[in-house]
């Protein structure tokens, strides 16, 4: 069996793409609800994701075929199409907020004057191009971009950590469980990363201890996210919830910036590279699902549909972005939790039924 990915690439995938999309508006969303306890809310979500990822990794160990075949094997053709459709909708919805975040970021901070929305459109050809590529390209992108994420993160960390007052997170838990859990709930759109791993099942050769490596990689990724959240809050304290784009805000208070200009943009641009890939991932997996559901051979057709729909959503619903964001944080959060965390957590059950011999298929 020819594998599209290596275990190393799966691990690096988690480091390269998982932390970055949580560094835009999520910190301010969490800070608004649970204030100094925002990191606990984040920790809850990360723990849920860790559990999901551990269970999906267990499925990877047990399975000899990919996720699509597993689902078809268990639920039959029609059932599998239904389940895949749920994931398709999930990924399409999951992509909306991060894409809008990046668009808003580009409009509000990257350009000196607010540019037209058309300046954001080059993003879509990039996603289209990525969507027509095989899965191994995602693995190879992880090979390259993990270093971008880490360098970008450490540049920002280095510039900002001296401005942080770490006592700001005290007293722990004073905001009450209600607020903490509520913040965690509202952030589900940004989490649920276990769902990505489903599509890596059977795509890499699972060897002994691979599960530990994958979980350890996610732990590193979680550590990056958590430390970022804590530093963010410790820098801004009482005005943390007003900082819309956390990762560009935290590093600008260092004295050297006054003398050398915004050289923290080196780190920021590196993170934007990773983020461009990161926010393309839901659409990439949506394309793969669509290809499978309709058995499409010409990938560009599905890529065009998925990217076109997403571009249309961006162009038409641009004015209602805040409503969409509130929906994602409100009613849809439960959907994101179920599809992003609960369903993948049950993936080991898929391996219970004896698998067909797909190698000869």
């Amino acid at each position, binding site marked *: 069996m020819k594998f599209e990915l290596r275990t190393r690439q799966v691990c690096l995938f988690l480091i390269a793409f998982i932390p970055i999309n949580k560094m835009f508006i999520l910190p301010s969303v969490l800070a608004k609800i649970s204030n100094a306890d925002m990191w606990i809310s984040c920790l809850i979500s990360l723990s849920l994701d860790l559990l999901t990822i551990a269970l999906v990794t267990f499925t990877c160990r047990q399975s000899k075929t990919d996720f699509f075949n597993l689902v078809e094997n268990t639920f039959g053709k029609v059932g599998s199409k239904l389940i895949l459709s749920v994931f398709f909708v999930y990924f399409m919805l999951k992509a909306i907020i991060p894409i809008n975040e990046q668009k808003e970021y580009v409009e509000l901070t990257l350009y000196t004057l607010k540019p037209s929305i058309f300046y954001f459109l080059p993003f879509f050809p990039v996603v289209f191009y990525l969507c027509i590529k095989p899965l191994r390209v995602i*693995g190879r992108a992880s*090979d390259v971009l993990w270093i971008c994420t880490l360098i970008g993160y450490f540049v920002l960390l280095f510039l900002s950590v001296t401005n942080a007052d770490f006592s700001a997170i005290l007293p722990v838990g004073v905001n009450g469980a209600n607020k903490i859990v509520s913040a965690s709930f509202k952030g589900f759109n940004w989490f649920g990363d276990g769902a990505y791993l489903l599509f890596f099942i059977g795509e890499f050769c699972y060897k002994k201890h691979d599960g530990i490596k994958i979980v350890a990689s996610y732990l590193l990724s979680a550590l990056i996210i958590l430390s970022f959240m804590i530093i963010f809050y410790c820098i801004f304290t009482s005005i943390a919830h007003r900082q819309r784009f956390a990762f560009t805000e935290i590093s600008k208070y260092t004295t050297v910036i006054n*003398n050398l200009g915004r050289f923290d943009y080196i780190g920021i641009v590196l993170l934007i590279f990773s983020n461009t890939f990161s926010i393309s991932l839901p659409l990439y997996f949506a394309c793969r699902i669509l290809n499978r559901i309709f058995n499409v051979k010409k990938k560009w057709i599905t890529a065009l549909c998925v990217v076109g729909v997403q571009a249309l959503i961006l162009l038409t619903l641009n004015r209602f972005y805040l409503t969409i964001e509130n929906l994602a944080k409100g009613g849809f959060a439960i959907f994101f939790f179920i599809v992003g965390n609960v369903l993948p957590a049950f993936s080991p059950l898929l391996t219970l039924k004896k698998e067909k011999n797909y190698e000869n298929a």
Partner: protein
Amino acid sequence: MKMVKNLKTNIKYLQKTLDSEDVTFLEVKIKNTDAVLIFINDLVNKDAIGELVLRPAFNYDKPITAQNLFDAFFSPEKKQVFSLKDVVNEVLLGNAILLADGVDSALSFGLKQFEKRSITEPPTSTVIKGPREGFVESLPVNISLMRRKLKTQDLRFENVTIGRYSKTPVALCYITSIADKKLVKAIKEKLKSIDIDAVLDSSYISKLLGEHKISLFKQIGNTEKPDILAAKILEGRIAIFVDGSPIALTVPYLLIEDFQSASDYYNSPYSATVARVLRLFSVLIALFLPALFVAAELFHLQLIPLSFLLTIVNSIKGIPLSPSYEMFLTLLIFEILNEASVRMPKYVGMVVSIVGGLVLGETAVNAGIISAPTLMIIALSGICLYTVPELEQTFAVLRALFLIIGGSSGLYGLICSITLLIIYLISFENFSTPLCAPFSPLIIKDMKDGIYKGFIEEHQMRPLSIKNTNKRRLKIKKTGVDNEI
């Protein structure tokens, strides 16, 4: 068409086919039997014809049979040819052909002799330390250079003739105990499938061998130096020589190859690593600096430090062109000067550099048509590009593209286009070898000859980026001799 025993019939056909004044049909007698020696005047060594063909023919006293004739001549390069088509081919290749009456085969003598360039240091890859010899246009000379480097029975040359009209000899070169057999087979098949009028240079083969017809980047490596080629072959690559071209091709090709220089292997690893980092940074500056500068000026003033911004604004005040047009115009002038200086004779080239560099630049700045920072950035970018001369043309196109993108859509446009380029590069494969290895896919063991250049002791195994059948290339044996005196 098969040969017949009647000489006249054969000659009649050949005279009709090779109807050209430079083809000589020399009639000779071998033991009273009519015979004809055919050759192209300027391609053969006439002294050798006298010594190795005519003298033995004059002294010949055995019965005229194909085998007797073959045994009678002592030419080291001789073979029997049985069809008239092959006779024609042999003549065109510069060999001398002897046909005798009553024999239905011909003898071909490899007595080629034509003018060739002497072995010199190639202008594209000069080194301060290390071998200075370079390939020439003659295939046998190039093969001899390789044989001198690698004295092993495992070094194989396989010949293919390509070109309907040029009949260019092309030689495949590899080490049997190292090269991947499947790759050799695939390349051979690909070469054989080429049906083209003429192969005038190895670049023809290079383009036809690539798996991607539309490609921005090189798909086949090349070198003009035997030492580099030997090193590449020893890593498991396969070389292709084309008669008439001093450039040998190598397959598979990795992008990192062009960031490696021959001198890296002859100097200390420290300086090699620094040089490679420098090359990488230079390429980044060359590719992105003009675009970033224009993007910052037009869309992202906040990226420029205040004191620097004031200097820029000072210098661009009064310039009639917008920053993007100004940069594009300057780049255009630079590319024109570059093109002109390459084409012009050497002594005129000096004039071009004076006129272009000093007069045009200085006057344009003084006249307020272009600003000094723009000129400086293009000059810097231009110089930086030549730190990796092999990729200069590709990067020049990319630089212009990035400039246009940066000038029209700013930093985000640039980020998207670079992301697109990254996806393109990491998904690019030729002969199942990823172009960006060992970075993507990440092959950690090969990183010691990536940007970082390891010590020779670290290169004990052959790179994994290139498929090969023999993994170890260096064994360090402990001598047991105490180094302390």
